[in-house]
């Protein structure tokens, strides 16, 4: 796990206990065909602090350590450890957006709602399956048309942040999901408790106050949110790896083959050592990225993409090897491991695959003058 302050440790313990009490793996399995959002539990999570860490104190939020993203990483880690349901990622990303770029009305209304746990938000972030939303500005109203291929948690959310284009200028909007003309069509997905939808906009009329941030700033804002999302995804993946590792190490100690524990077989020991290394590296990368992004350091985007690329590549592979070490029982639905694999791959592939994150890291490389001169 991460190196924490005493306050963070207390916060972590509370969150971990709460999630363990409500989201044991049997419960997660049961939720696959049931509604996965439980408002009461979410509101109690909000009381624990799950929704307010990325918001300013002036808006009713506040961090524990001074870097709210580092604090929130702890929650994401434990969401990964439990493959827990709840709009943690989308709601926090939107909270950050509202706090950073929102109008007074947006901060007093929707943001306050989110902080209290009553309001839930989703982010139609840029995903690979491109589908554009266009906006028409009638002067009085904004009219949205188009579709977003895949939005996490849209059915449970009250507000959606979406970027839309007018005259090659992209701007973010905060859209109430009850707006006439919005339709959701469900996708199937691997994660047992995450629900994805294609969101279609057909002549959706919004007041001009729905704009979030300055006109033309949509792509820049999306890029900032993408960094935050990457950090939280890396945190969840690290948590999923942590749980899978814990289960697997115990299994190798308990399971006997030919009269000896699996843990006494050198080939297995060495694989477990590799798993342990990837786990430690993933935790370190996620924490380092949370520090950089939370501090808005100059290299924040590089660290965010690096954490996403590393955990997204090695997390799922590491959990697959945990499954292999279990043999047949590891591929049964009643076993827990696949819950963490599903969570890890979902985080790995959405909002940029590990491969695209690697490319992003490369694109952010600055060529030192010395090299330019030398060649």
């Amino acid at each position: 796990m991460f190196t924490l302050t005493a306050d963070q440790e207390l916060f972590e313990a509370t969150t971990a206990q709460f999630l363990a009490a409500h989201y044991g793996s049997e419960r997660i399995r049961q939720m696959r065909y049931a509604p996965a959002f439980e408002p009461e539990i979410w509101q109690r999570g909000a009381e624990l602090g799950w929704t307010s860490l990325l918001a300013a104190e002036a808006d009713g939020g506040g961090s524990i350590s001074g870097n709210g993203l580092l604090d929130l990483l702890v929650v994401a880690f434990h969401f990964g450890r439990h493959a827990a349901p709840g709009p943690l990622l989308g709601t926090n990303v939107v909270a950050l957006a509202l706090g950073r770029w929102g109008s007074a009305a947006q901060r007093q209304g929707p943001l306050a709602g989110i902080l209290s746990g009553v309001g839930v938000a989703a982010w139609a972030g840029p995903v690979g399956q491109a589908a554009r939303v266009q906006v028409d500005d009638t002067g009085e109203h904004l009219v949205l048309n188009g579709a977003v291929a895949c939005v996490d948690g849209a059915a449970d959310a009250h507000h959606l942040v979406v970027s839309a284009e007018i005259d090659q200028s992209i701007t973010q909007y905060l859209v109430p999901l009850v707006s006439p003309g919005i339709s959701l069509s469900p996708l199937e997905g691997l994660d047992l408790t995450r629900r994805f939808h294609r969101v279609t906009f057909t002549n959706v009329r919004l007041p001009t106050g729905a704009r979030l941030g300055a006109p033309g700033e949509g792509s820049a804002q999306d890029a900032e949110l993408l960094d935050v999302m990457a950090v939280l995804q890396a945190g969840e993946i690290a948590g999923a790896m942590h749980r899978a590792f814990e289960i697997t190490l115990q299994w190798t100690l308990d399971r006997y083959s030919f009269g000896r524990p699996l843990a006494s077989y050198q080939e297995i020991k060495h694989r477990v050592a590799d798993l342990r290394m990837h786990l430690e590296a993933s935790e370190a990368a996620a924490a380092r990225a949370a520090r950089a992004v939370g501090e808005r350091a100059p290299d924040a985007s590089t660290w965010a993409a690096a954490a996403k690329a590393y955990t997204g590549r090695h997390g799922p592979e590491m959990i697959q090897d945990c499954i292999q070490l279990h043999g047949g029982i590891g591929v049964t639905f009643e076993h827990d491991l696949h819950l963490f694999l599903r969570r890890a791959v979902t985080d790995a592939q959405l909002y940029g695959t590990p491969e695209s994150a690697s490319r992003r890291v490369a694109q952010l490389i600055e060529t030192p003058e010395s090299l330019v001169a030398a060649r």
Partner: protein
Amino acid sequence: MSEQISVADFAARARGWLPDYLPAADPAAAQFFLTATGSSDVEDLARIQTCRALQRKLHDGGFAGICVPPEYGGQGLTPAHQAAFNRELRGYDYPAEIQASTFIPAMALLLEFGTEEQKLRHIPAMLRGEEIWIQFLSEPGSGSDAASAVTTATREGDQWVLNGSKIWTTAGWYGDWAICLARTNWDAEKHRGLTVFTFPMSTPGIEVRRIELVNGSREFCQEYLTDVVVSDADRLGEVDAGWDVVTRWLYHERTIAGGSKYVTGQGNQSTEGPYEAAVMAALAREHGTWDEPRTQELIGEARVLGLVRSALVQSVTRKMADGALPHHAAAILRLFSGMATTRRASIAYELAGERGVAWDPADRTDAQVALGYVVRQAACIGGGTTEMARNVISERLLGMPRERRADSEAFRDVPRGPGTSRSR
């Protein structure tokens, strides 16, 4: 049969018979091997009934049990006849789903170890499609070590009483008879206290539970045996000599892939589904990614793995037949197959990008890629793990020192882990 029919004549007879008796195969019914069938239990059971009827047709036409002696309902011919029939059978629907388990290992073991009475009772019924058999071999605690079975048979006069649990049985929920490994002596070394039994699935005390895999498949079952009473007449082989039977059992299991003389046809109809390079290429074109060099590199890699696997199977099979390689070399094929399938699952998943975790319900290929990725390791587990294959290659093929064993004492005293008592 006084004079044996020639292979060519037999093939000609099959060519004449088949169009009139067997329906054409439906390519659309071919199943992708790594994901759930998507068919309901009712549909699956209906298919099994069809298989029984098709098997009966084969039997009545003189094409069932081609290598089985006539006294047990077979044709008494040679593996070459079976191979010729298999070739003719291409393109026809046939009872593919009931070949494994029933004919190998069950029928093969009956032929090798059964009493005359047992053979006469079961083999004709098998060949007529009336008896589908199930293998009760693996146990929840046995993993790669079949000889560590703890399902126990206790003698009571002319009967045995069985208690324990078996797992990873196919056909467990509709089969007719079981062939079951059980421990009959806890004081002997673990291989020397085992005995094999047979019994009908209708025997009281058998509870069957379907197992769901992570891809939704419900093909496998677990069984709980509680005071299941078996007649000593249904014992197969000698008491406490069950390991002799299991050795052949495992041998016959391995021949499933390589074309056993007791198996009709060339395996279940299956397709590589989304791992077929042509499917990957078509998908890439559809999604506009085909022109990326990396896409072609990955699809090419998937195809290379398929091609090399076929070259490897052909080469190693020939070398084993020549004696250039011992039969343990089959472990190379098992290892390669596991590695190639998991890699191809990963390639398909990488190509799918976010469609591999959230997809339009209308797109079944995306669903196959996603579920195939989650169940990926089954390709390195089922039918003997790749770890066991590496043990066989290093120890048996290359002569590297054997692993130290900690199970050579009386089985009662072999450590079986903190969760199990050392003795009963």
